[in-house]
């Protein structure tokens, strides 16, 4: 089942879905599994598995260090795909590859798409790959039946939103504010207006991310966005409060 249909189905029973995030191999694949267990329990709908990269220039400090540590402990792309396979088989949520374009480029776009698909991934997010550079990858993905997640942002002009909208499939990632992952976003009228703008240019579901850390944030989005994307806040909770902390975090978040 494709990503877009999965979201549509899930949305029949929920007014907003939740997408969570883990950095593969950080702190370790074992702990990743524990985190994912908790996310699954809490009813998380989608998970991005970030493949660590040495130059994560769109990430904030917490993820930067997570990328770095994971690579230091020897994480390979192959391990990440194996992990993806394991995860997508074990858990009810859908899994996306998240990472930087060089990972895909180095293995070759064909091989990349094939491997995502084989590993049970329903799509991928490559934040440093603009649509101008994606034609071939998008075509291959379409052939394979996986989705490239396109990002729309507060700085994107209407002209460009139209262009992005035209090629969007599966899910659009609406970036709630300028900046990198990790800092807090004031979820308010600005974000809602942005969602409104994006909605005019695409029919695919809209996920909103960057700085979502509480139920209150999600409540703001309810009725406007299809998916709330939670990244740094969860990792931070894991680091500070371990499994009990994370369990409580998702319980409160999704209450």
């Amino acid at each position, binding site marked *: 089942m494709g990503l877009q249909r999965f979201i549509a189905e899930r949305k029949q029973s929920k007014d907003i879905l939740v997408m969570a995030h883990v950095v593969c191999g950080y702190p370790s694949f074992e702990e990743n599994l524990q985190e994912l267990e908790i996310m699954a329990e809490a009813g998380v709908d989608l998970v991005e598995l970030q493949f*660590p*990269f*040495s*130059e*994560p*220039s*769109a*990430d*904030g*400090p917490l993820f*930067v*260090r997570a990328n*770095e540590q994971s*690579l230091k402990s020897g994480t*390979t*792309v192959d391990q990440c795909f194996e992990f993806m396979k394991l995860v997508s088989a074990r858990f009810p949520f859908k899994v996306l590859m998240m990472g*930087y*374009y*060089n*990972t895909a*480029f*180095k*293995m070759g776009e064909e091989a990349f798409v094939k491997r995502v698909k084989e590993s049970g991934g329903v799509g991928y997010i490559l*934040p*440093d*790959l*603009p649509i*101008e*550079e994606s034609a071939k990858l998008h075509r291959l993905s379409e052939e394979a039946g996986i989705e490239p997640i*396109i*990002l*729309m*942002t*507060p*700085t*994107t*002009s209407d002209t*460009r939103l139209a262009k*992005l909208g035209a090629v969007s499939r599966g899910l659009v990632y609406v*970036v709630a504010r*300028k*900046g*990198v992952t990790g800092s807090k976003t004031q979820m308010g009228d600005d974000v809602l207006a942005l969602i409104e703008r994006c909605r005019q240019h695409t029919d695919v579901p809209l996920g909103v991310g960057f700085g979502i850390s509480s139920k209150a944030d999600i409540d703001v989005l309810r009725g406007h966005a299809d998916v709330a994307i939670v990244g740094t806040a969860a990792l931070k909770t894991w680091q500070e409060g371990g499994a009990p902390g994370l369990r409580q975090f998702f319980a409160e978040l999704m209450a």
Partner: protein
Amino acid sequence: MDIFDFSEGREGYYGEYGGVFLPEILQATIEELLVCFRECKADPKFWQDYVALLQNYSGRPTPITHLENLSRKLGGAQIYVKRDDLNHTGSHKINNVMGQGLLCQRLGKSKVIAETGAGQHGFATATMAAKFGFECKIYMGAVDVARQRPNVFWMENLGAEVIAVEDGQKTLKDAVNECMRDWVTNMADTHYILGTACGPHPFPEMVSWFQSIIGLEAREQMLKQAGRLPDRVYACVGGGSNAMGIFQGFMDDDVELIGSEGGGHGVGSYMHSSRLAYDDATVGVAQGYKTYFLQNDEGNMNETHSVAAGLDYIGVNPIFAHLHDQGKVRFEAATDVEVKEALKLTMRTEGLIPALESTHAFVTAIKEAPTMGKDQIILINQSGRGDKDIFTIADALDDAKWKSFIGGKADQYRAENN
């Protein structure tokens, strides 16, 4: 040949290299920059203002010096040197920085950010920001901050905020990433002054354009001073801006162009920064553009090394990747050891102190000059002066008196604190 004529190919691409690989949030900013840059490039007044600014502030045109002693000693080609070391702040970096300063003014932005490795580009940017009245933040790997304190000292005194980047290898490439992170947040009022001909389009073209002033001057000066064009032109290649700068003066001529990269501990050592001279680099996409990177099979960047901090970088400008493919520029590497010897020779024979970066160009030229005829001419680009690098050079030459001076100075400071 106009390498910047994209009418036949894709805008921002040199062969398969270049492009714009940036987060969507920056697309508007990079588009705005591109539009502004196109205006500037089309406006003869802009270039006039640029040249006038460099003349009045930085001492351009920098001269060409004939190295009669070294030429005689090597017994081959006549060696000439383009003296970009005489620029204000001590290197060619000021050219690009002043140009981007003018452009930043035109963009109406009030803040600038820049990455720096050796500190030379940061020093130049801090200087430009003081002159233009911009707020200025310099991102620098924590390792570099620690070892390049003199430049940090000057940047701070020029009013810049220097931010030590604690991620990754804590060196240049990490400073670039951190700049990107600042930029995706503050692009509304901030211009990113990239320091070399790398990064996303239009940076490679823009930095090359500003640096082309070196080659423009040099061509004219060679004709005037030596009566003809050189047979070969040598420049060191970090990101490739000084080399692009001087090479552009001779692209359409029958002149061989040679780029000299950081050979570090040598071929096979994996402790170097030779992307094109050695076979260790492969094509990849990082830091906003596609080029040859020193990376592993999975696309994660390798550690690099050069005695010259300004060459110690994972990537090379996409234009060179293309010119290399086409055989239009030859790339060689100079090892750390060779650099030290060439530096000593140049100091004693000619009274010049090239920056460690620039000395890489000297190494290759010194190797090749003796094999050339006495009636042949070579031109070396001295991109910077070495006296700013006293700590690095004293370390490289392992100078005992310097070390004991530093010991004494440290004791003095400690005593003052008690």
